[in-house]
């Protein structure tokens, strides 16, 4: 699946497009297929997101898993400070 991510303009927080708005939780992301470009353009113009882009991910039994480790770390938090993660189940193994 193709999902959209970016950073909230004001807070810088990692955000994921849920089809209608931006969520802090990767599991809220929706598959955008080929529709991403229009959403990114509109949302950046509205200053609701900064530097949005499309990434590859897959739906697993545990939730949405971004394909690249960098995006998994963005989704779950620094592997060395998972106490700061928004996902209470996050572990280094889950990120890796």
């Amino acid at each position: 699946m193709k999902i959209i991510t970016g950073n909230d303009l004001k807070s810088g927080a990692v955000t994921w497009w849920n089809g209608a708005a931006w969520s802090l939780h990767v599991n809220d992301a929706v598959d955008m297929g080929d529709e991403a470009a229009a959403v990114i353009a509109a949302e950046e113009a509205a200053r609701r997101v900064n530097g949005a882009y499309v990434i590859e991910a897959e739906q697993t039994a545990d939730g949405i898993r971004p394909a690249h480790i960098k995006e998994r770390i963005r989704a779950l938090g620094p592997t060395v400070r998972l106490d700061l993660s928004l996902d209470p189940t996050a572990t280094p193994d889950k990120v890796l």
Partner: protein
Amino acid sequence: MYLYDHYDQAMVDARVAEFRDQTRRRIEGTLSEEKFRPLRLQNGLYLQLHAYMLRVAVPYGTLSGAQMKMLGDIADKYDRGYGHFTTRQNIQYNWIKLEDTPDILADLASVEMHAIQTSGNCIRNISADQYAGATADELIDPRPYAELLRQWSSFHPEFLALPRKFKICVIASDTDRAAMRLHDIGIQIVKNEAGEIGAAFYVGGGMGRTPFIAPLVKAFVPLDELITYSEACLRVYNRYGRRDNKYKARIKILVHELGVDEYRRQVEEEFAHLQTLAIEPPLAELERIKTFFADPAYEAGLSDDLDLSNPAFAAWVKNNTAAHKTPGYAIVNISLKPVKTLADGSKQAGIPGDATGEQIRVMADLAKTYSFDELRVTHTQNIVLPHVRKADLFTVWEKLVAAELAEANLDKITDIIACPGLDYCTLANARSIPVAQKIAERMADKAEEIGELKLKISGCINACGHHHAGHIGILGVDRKGLENYQLLLGGCEGADTSLGKIVGPGFDEDGIVGAVEKATQVYLANKEGEERFLDTYRRIGMNPFKEAIYG
């Protein structure tokens, strides 16, 4: 230490007001990100993996207690309770909000601090020896010259759009504690045969994807021509540095491609021209600056005796204190590389360079009470209290123990430099911090036996973790989407600067920990006398290590 005059304060305050307006316009939508990005970067505000990251300048690594306290307060008020001290003697905050940043900059300005020129293609924060003004082995205190260079380079209109970033380091000791020859310009204050004090200029060093040790360009520049010669070095670079390829844009590439002789010739030509323009600041300004760096009011006649009957205190004194130029005083190093022993006997290493807001305030209080209100940030991501009475060492140590800041491991294998790596940094290809923690945990019980071993880890080729200069260096790379770690041996950042060489094929995270352990075993089996790891490596060469690691 240097105190702002009204010009300094006005410049910083004006910049805060300017950035507040720019931020407002960005949030309101009258400034696009394309236009805003260079403006925020000029104020040290990056967008990293998890949030905005703010890098705060600590000029030549020197701080007052009040400044340090402010850094701790910012960690708690605006970030998530901690900050990260960097290899550039600065501090970074990882979880900053854009909308808070003008207020943070205003708080910093209230204690004569800022984040200006901590990013972008300009002259960055000037770095220096962390023992400056305290150690007996320096010629003079180099910080007045670093401060003069700071003033010259701040908002220098000609050098705000260089081909690439530019880093200057100033030392005044043959014992190079600041990696001087791995800077774009490394300046060593020296004495010539006539007994005059001047500056030796090393130009074109650096790490990154193409590491070079800076060659000597001029052995002696009179101190009243320091700025003029620096300007000449920069002008030649600004004119001919590569702007077509960012990977070849640093001055090291220009010096290498021109050859040091031709670069020197061009600098001399420019220098002669600049001398006719009388751009050097008046010596009276240098003398004014020097007054801020006068020795504090040391007590005379203090004893050097110490009660070392407490073994943990004795170990800390042995490893983490250094000789001070004044009898009865010591230089204290506070390690930000803790390794805890848990109840079950296992080890738990901290994050290199990280300190909580409370720990930062503890260090600020210690500086105020016991070190003439002064601290230093080191490029090895530790903190220094430069002037502590030996009679106070035990009390200082007890307070550090209570704050979990008393790890006695300076320059040991557990005192690891590690960049933020893929856990925080958008540029990184692999994580650095977990590798540092695993190595520290594996090697903690052997650290004392191994002795001095400087291990440095970078999570990408940009080398913020100084892997080229590690006795053992580790470079994290991306291999088909997986983290992979290359091992280097033989680097050194000191007076005998050398660049590490790659041992062989890379490893996964656990593999690199095992490879490091094997390298230390080769050292221990082959060391002669008082040899350090680096000495043994230089004597026996790469092959015994390679055979043990890959055999």
